[in-house]
Structures are given as C-alpha cells and as structure tokens.
C-alpha cells in the first residue's frame, strides 16, 4: 500500500460526533461495571463472606477399622493392634532441640533420624504434630507420659496398625498389608477416596489382598472448619463409616501351626482338606516369614535375606509351586485304564525291572523287577513297569482327561496369590507349545508322574479328597464373611464306576496297611483311623545309562537341589473318610521315608483335633515319636500364654 502525503489539519466533525457517542457508551459501561462491583461487594457482601467461609471448611475422611481375620474357631489371625507413637507439636515445644535431647533418654533417637526429624518439624506448620517414633512398647509410652512436665509439646498417641499374632503360620494365607503405592493405584480400578490417603494400608498379598474390598470397609467423613492457614478450629459434624467385614477362615490355627512346625527346616508344603465340604483345615508352605515385618516396612537386609534364601520363603508353594507328582499320579493312570476297559483288576503284567520301547529302556524303581503283578500290588509296591504298560494302552489323552476330573491341571479358585494351574499334557498341547509331536516315551514318563506332568500340593490334596469321596470336592478357604457363611454347592459325583474307585482305594489302603506296602512302616495303628495313601518320589535329574550301570547315586550323596522330591497323598479314616492330605518336600528324598510320616502325623493331628494318643502309632515307634514331638516348635494353645 502506498501512502500519499497529505496536509495536516483537515478533520471532519463526524469524527468528534461519533467519538462522543462511542466514549459516552464506554463511560456508561464503566458505570455499569462500577455498579456491578458495588452490588457484589457491598449489597451482597454478607452472602459472599459466608460462601468464602465455606471455602474454608474441609472435609476429612475417617478411615474405617479394617476387618479382622480369624481362624475357624475364632482365634485372631490378623488384628488391629494399638500402635503407640510419640508426636511433637512445635508451637508447644518451644526449644525443639532441647526437648528431643530430653526425649532421647527414653526413646533412642539416632543421629540421622534426629536430623530428618528436625527438618520435618520445621517444614510443617507449628501446630501440626510430627511423629517421632512408632510401634513403641507400653513401658516407653508410660515413661513418656510420666515425664510429661519435662517434655513440653510431646504427646503419646495411640493409633491402629495391622498385626499378625500368629506370625509365620499364616504369612502365606492371610498375606499382609502395606501402604498403597502409585503402582497399586495404576492397576486397580477403585474410586474409593481412602486410597488417596498417603500411606493408607491395603492388602498386598493373600486373603488381605484378595478380599481387600470386604476387609477395607467404608470411610466416614467429618467436616471441620480451618482458618486461613489450615489450622483446625472446630468439628462441624461427622458421619461414621462402616468398619470392614470380619472374616473367618476354614483353617484351624492349631493344625496350621503343627503343620508348619512339622515342615520346619525343609522347603516343603502340605495341605489338609475336609473331604466332606472341601474346607481347607491347614495349608502351609515352609519356610514361612514374619508378615509383621512387611507392615512396618521391611528393612533391605531382612528382605534380601528372604529373597536370597534357596528355600524361597516368600513363595506360597502350596498353590504356586508345581512339581512332577511322581508315583502319586499312578491312581489317575489306573482309573483311566479301568474306565476305558483296557485292564481288569485281575489281569497281571510281568515286570522284569524295565520296559523296552524301541531302543529306549524305561526302568522300574526296583532293579530286579516285581515279577507278575496285578493292580492292587502295583499300587501297593508302586511298580513302574505296570504303569508303563497301562499308559501305553490308554494313551495320554484319556489319562489327562481323568486327571482333570480329579482337579489336576486346573486353577482352583481360592483367595490366594499366583495360583498355578499345573499341567496335564495332551498331544495338541505339546504340538502348540513345544512345537514337537507327542512321543510314546512322553506317555510312559507321564505314567509315573514325570515328564510334562505337573501338579501343585493343593491339587494333590484335592485329588486325594476326590478319590476318597468319589465326588468333585471343591476347596474352600473362606468360612464366613461378616458372619455370613459362604455357601458351597454339594459336590457332584465323578464320572467313574464304583468298582474302579474301590479297586484303587484298596490299593492305596494296602500301601500303608499291608506288609510290603511302600508306606507300611508309616501306618496308623488305630483301627478306626487307618489311612489310605500313595507315596511318590519324583526325579529332578536324569539318570544316565552309565550311572545306572555303576549303581544309582543315593540321594544323600547328591547336592540338595538335585535330590528327588518326596511326596505323599493320603486320606483317613479309610472306612469313613474325613481328611485328605498332601505333602511335598522339595528335594527331600524318598516319598515313603520322608513325606509319608509327615502326612501321617498331620492327619492324626487333624483326626484327633490335637495330640494323638500313643496307641495311634505302631508300638515300636511310640517312644521315638513322643520324643520328636517334644522337640517341635509348637505354639502353646491360645489362653495358655502367660
């Protein structure tokens, strides 16, 4: 745009006229603004003052008391214990450093802790109480209270914190609580405002985690008036929340305690199930750990001690661990063959000590062989060759299908973490996952519970319970929530003939009650309590031809992690089954020698609901067993504590 020069001085009147109109309008609008301001600030001032006051009313959450967890008889497993702590209020303390010095005579305060405290105290407004120490003993609190005049600004307070009185015994079942983390918040879809409270405790593991919503309860609120700097002036009103639901487990704390004491020193797991209703009376994984350490914030040293322990104390092996079931799997093979009609209870198979498949040789555990052997004796003596032959006849598909009927190879719904499904292989599975075709050798390995077959201790207990009852019993861990019994549908019968079941049961009975049975020496002597069971010894290493020729190395001479797993599954009493049990001792050695006595003792403890009478044991063992029992690290019964 090119601009022309023009002489100054030419202006029309129109500009002035329009300007007057425009700026008259602007002046008028400015007047309106002034009037509006007057209206808001003078006429309505009182109303807005009130609203401004409302801006100063805070709503505070009142966290509900967390629901308690009890055992089946009402013994507390997780409780809210009083947590004594000492706080300091700066504006009342005056000389903070002097007060801290005086206090350190009663409660030790480290140099570092002291520096951190001083920083914290100065950072908060003068009226905010700052926690100096938590989890104090009653003596310490009493001492602080007694010295109150010398400790201005120091106050003892009591709060609630989660406590697990039974410690190790229920670490894997009850789990533990811990402060809610950003990770938790990102993972769970929960709008509960409680989760926004810093350090609010939520379930991190086990039952505490799985039924978090029931245990947590619902928050109450209180409205408080704060002044301009946030100091609480008064409470206006309060709405109470609902405390969390109390939960009762099916577990018996005494049996649980016995079970863990019995497994002490090993890396092992065991489960006891009530056959009639599926209630888990005890389910333990050894070694355990103290969940209370996690509540208070576990130290790095303690935590690495747990994670570096080769016995894996943090893992709940009873549901998370999967193992080759070894010979305890033979009942499944036998039932599959009986159901398919490929064997009768009378038919005998010859065991020369090995079974040849092409150029491969599969060995029986007994080098010389069992000779001609029928179903009953094959279970009683745990002959491997008999089951190689059976498996060869029925094939893996029917074996796995049978095992699934008995609860193997599937995830059972329990309020516990990381429940494993185990594995009941099929041809399609191997093709898909491993990418190789199924071989007959795989079937033979599966026949004796080795190879691809994997089961967890809880699954083996379920298998035993289903064998005993002939019904699809389902495990149950929660007895009642808030006093309401959790319902269980009656278990449907299994698709298997009574004769087949009876034959297998008789074989299991022979294992521990007939001379020559693999667990005869670990029998129950009391007639009305006799058990039926099956031993298992599962290999975790391959025995080479050369080693077999030289003689198989004994377990005791192998490093721990290469020894066999020892297994035992059982139920009792044989005539009127009440409890099923499974025991797995990782790298424990032979099942009959190491797992069977543990399983028997646990069963007896459950059957007699406490220490069994000496008559329950074979006469020759009574003295030894009584002595051993005294050595067990058992907790004195509740009420007995001094």
């Amino acid at each position, binding site marked *: *745009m*090119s*601009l*022309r*020069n*023009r002489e*100054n*001085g*030419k*202006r*029309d009147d*129109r*500009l*002035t006229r*329009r*300007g007057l109109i*425009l*700026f008259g309008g*602007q*002046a008028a*609008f*400015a007047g309106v*603004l*002034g009037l*509006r*301001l*007057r209206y*808001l*600030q*003078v006429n*309505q*001032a009182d*109303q*807005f*003052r009130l*609203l*401004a006051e409302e*801006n*100063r009313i805070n709503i505070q959450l009142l966290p509900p008391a967390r629901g308690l967890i009890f055992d089946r008889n009402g013994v507390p497993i997780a409780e809210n214990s009083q947590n004594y702590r000492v706080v300091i209020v700066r504006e009342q303390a005056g000389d903070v450093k002097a007060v801290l010095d005086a206090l350190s005579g009663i409660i030790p305060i480290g140099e570092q802790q002291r520096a951190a405290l001083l920083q914290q105290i100065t950072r908060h407004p003068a009226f905010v109480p700052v926690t100096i120490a938590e989890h104090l003993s009653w003596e310490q609190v009493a001492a602080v209270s007694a010295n109150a005049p010398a400790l201005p600004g120091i106050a003892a307070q009591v709060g609630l914190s989660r406590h697990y009185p039974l410690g190790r015994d229920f670490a894997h079942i009850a789990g533990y609580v811990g402060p809610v983390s950003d990770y938790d918040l990102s993972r769970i879809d929960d709008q509960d405002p409680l989760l926004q409270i810093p350090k609010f405790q939520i379930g991190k593991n086990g039952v505490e985690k799985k039924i978090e919503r029931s245990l947590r309860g619902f928050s109450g609120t209180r409205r408080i008036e704060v002044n*301009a700097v*946030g100091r609480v002036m008064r409470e206006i009103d309060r709405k109470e929340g609902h405390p969390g639901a109390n939960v009762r487990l099916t577990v018996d704390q005494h049996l649980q305690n016995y079970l863990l004491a019995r497994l002490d020193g090993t890396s092992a797991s065991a489960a006891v199930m009530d056959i009639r209703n599926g209630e888990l009376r005890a389910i333990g994984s050894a070694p355990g750990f103290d969940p209370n350490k996690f509540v208070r914030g576990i130290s790095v040293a303690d935590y690495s001690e747990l994670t570096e322990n080769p016995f894996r104390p943090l893992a709940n092996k009873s549901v998370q661990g999967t193992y080759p079931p070894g010979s305890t799997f033979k009942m499944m093979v036998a039932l599959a063959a009986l159901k398919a009609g490929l064997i009768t209870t009378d038919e005998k198979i010859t065991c020369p000590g090995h079974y040849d498949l092409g150029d491969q040789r599969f060995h029986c555990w007994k080098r010389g062989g069992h000779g001609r052997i029928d179903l009953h004796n094959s279970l009683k003596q745990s002959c491997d060759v008999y089951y190689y032959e059976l498996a060869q006849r029925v094939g893996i598909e029917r074996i796995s299908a049978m095992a699934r009927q008995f609860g193997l190879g599937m995830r059972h719904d329990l309020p516990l973490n990381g429940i494993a499904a185990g594995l009941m292989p099929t041809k399609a599975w191997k093709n898909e996952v491993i990418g190789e075709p199924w071989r007959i050798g795989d079937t033979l390995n599966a026949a004796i519970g080795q190879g691809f077959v994997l089961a967890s201790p809880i699954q083996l207990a379920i298998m035993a319970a289903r064998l005993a009852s002939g019904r699809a019993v389902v495990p149950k861990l929660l007895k009642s929530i808030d006093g309401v019994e959790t319902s269980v549908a009656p278990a449907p019968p299994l698709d298997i003939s009574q004769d087949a079941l009876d034959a297998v049961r008789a074989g299991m009975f022979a294992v521990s009650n007939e001379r020559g049975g693999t667990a005869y020496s670990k029998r129950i002597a009391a007639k009305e309590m006799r058990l039926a069971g099956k031993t298992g010894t599962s290999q975790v290493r391959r025995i080479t031809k050369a080693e077999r020729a030289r003689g198989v190395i004994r377990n005791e001479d192998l490093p721990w992690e290469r020894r066999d797993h020892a297994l035992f599954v059982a139920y009792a009493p044989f005539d009127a089954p009440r409890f099923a049990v499974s025991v797995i001792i990782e790298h424990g050695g032979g099942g009959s020698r190491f797992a069977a006595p543990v399983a028997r003792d646990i069963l007896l403890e459950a059957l007699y609901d406490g220490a069994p009478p000496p008559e329950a044991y074979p006469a020759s063992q009574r003295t030894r067993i009584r002595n051993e029992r005294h050595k067990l690290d058992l907790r004195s019964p509740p009420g007995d504590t001094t």
Partner: protein
Amino acid sequence: MSYLVHRVHSAPSGLSKVLALNWALIVLIIAVAAIGILMLYSVAGGSFEPWAAAQAKRFAVGFVLMLIVGFIPLFFWRNIAGLVYTIALFLLIGVEFFGDTGMGAQRWIDLGFLRLQPSELMKIALVMVLAAYYDWIEQPKVSRPVWVLVPLLLIAVPMLLVLKQPDLGTALLLGLGGTTMMFLAGVSWLYFAAAGISLGGLITAVILSRGTTWQILKDYQYRRIDTFLDPASDPLGAGYHITQSKIALGSGGWDGRGFMQGTQSRLNFLPEKQTDFIFTTLAEELGFVGGVSLLLLYVLIVLFCVVSGFGNRDRFGALLTLGIATTFFLFFAVNMSMVMGMAPVVGVPLPLVSYGGTAMLVLLIGFGLVQSAHIHRPR
C-alpha cells in the same frame, strides 16, 4: 522515499519533545502498573518471586519502549502501518505452524528471549492500519461498499486466524476494536445495522451447530458459555472459575480484608490468580474502594486519550489515539465483566496489571503511539 518529504509545521523537536509529552497519561499508567506489581507481590504470599519482580522489569522495558515510540514522528508510524499489519499477519499464520501450544491453544512463537503472542501485536497493528486507511481514502468514499469491504477483510482475516487458535477473547477484542475504528471513521449507520442482524444470525448458527460435525466453537468454549449462563450448575467443574471468582470478590466487602490478607486467593481457591483473575484478589483485599479506584484510573486513562484525540486535527493521529483508547477500554471492560460474572470466561488479561509479557509490551507500545500523536499533533 515519500515519508521523508513530509513537512512538519511547528511540531516540537529535540529535547522539547519531553515537555510535550502527555504527562498526565504517563502518571496514570505508572500508577496502574504499580498497583499491578503490588497485587502480584501479594498473590505470591508477600514475595517478589515469582511474578512481581519479573513484571516490574517488563514494565521498565515497556516504559522505555513507549517513550522511544512516542518520540518518533507520527508520519513514520502512518507510513509503516501497512508493513506492521502485514508482519503481524504473517506471524499469526506462523503460529499455526510453529507455535507452542499452551493451555490447549496455539498462541506463542518462541523467539528464545521472548515468547511472542502475535495476536496481541495484531491488536495494535489493526488499529494502526485502519487509522492509516481512513486517513488515506477520500472522505466521501468511506461508506461506499468497495471501500467498506477492504477494512472488513483487514479485520476478518486476523480475527478468523485467532479464532482458530482458538482464542475467543482476542478474537472478540479484534472484532470489536476494528468495528469501532470503522464507526469512528464515519461509515454509514446502515452497515452497522446490517452487521448487528448478521451477528444475531451467527450466534444462532453457533448455538445450532453444537454437537454437529460442522461445530463452530470447541467443546470447552461451549461449556464456558454454558457455565456463564448458569455457573451454579457445575460449581466444582467448569463453573468453578466464575463461582470462586465471585466469592472472592464479594467477600472483600466495602473496604476489603486488607493488603495481603485475602484468604481466597492465598488458599489457592482461585484459578489463574496471577493472570486473568487478578482483579478478584485486588477486590478481595482492597474491597469496593480499591476496585472502584482501579476502575476510575482506567476511565481516566481512556479519558485523557480521548481528550488528546479530539484535540488532534490530524486525522490519522486522532483515529489512532481513539482506537488505542478503545482497545484499552475493551481490555479492562471484558476482563472485569468476566470476573464479575457478567460475561463468559474468555481469557483477556487485566491491562497493565495481569502477569504477562506481550500484553504489557503491546499496550505500552500502543500508548507510545498515543504519545507520538500527541507530541507531533499539528498546532
């Protein structure tokens, strides 16, 4: 070069220009800026950081800039008006492509030392170019359709660009500012009547287009209009700004809670307390007396500009002065209406008081132009 041949009669030159400055205006501007810095000091809880000190520096720079612009002869500004407008327009197009996105809208070009908001620059550039335009065309042509179309385009193009950012407040200011220039220049009433009717049509279209694929405004802009009409409907959501702002204002009462005693702004109940909503802090702490005083200072600034403009026989100088006065008026009128719940929240700062760099600089440059017109007016 044509502008070099321009002859100036009896205009002051050299140091005598200092005496010819509109000193009343300068004193008023300093007073308002001082109030702004004090309020920023208070909002920060009695601290020069992070806002008051920065604001004071910017004002110092802007103030010097104002004097420099004022001392440069007016014909220079008239002759480069078109150039300034063109640059501002290109910068506006530039933010479309190179702009930083702040608060969901593209508004800045980062020059390293300054985050330039071309839309702010355009407010002054538009006034300049329109003043130059109406100075240039023959008086009788003003109302002829072709000669009306040119300024309409000059207004509409930047306005649409700003609307697209989207910045409703600035678009509104540009539109109103430009229209005012046309009105002052003497464009026939009939055009304004027609514009009023079509504006009514546009508003209808905006409302009707909501929720359809050719929706004219963004969702948040619709929500702001909603909450303006009924702020109580969503007091913790979109209506929060308006409700909290009215509470803070109203609770100030006649004489306020006292300097630095405001609870609402201090406790962070208020959003954007240092920028668009700073008037609420002032009104809460200094009360009706303080609020009206600031309003009075603003009105006086406009008044001194208007007096200067009416007394200027140079058409460009007069139009420029009155145009900048109007722009300034629109700033505080829209901002105050907004915080007092009389207009939707549209993001217009309180002139010379709100924290913010470009707005302050551009306003002071505008006042520099007013000074230039004042000093170099024909006598």
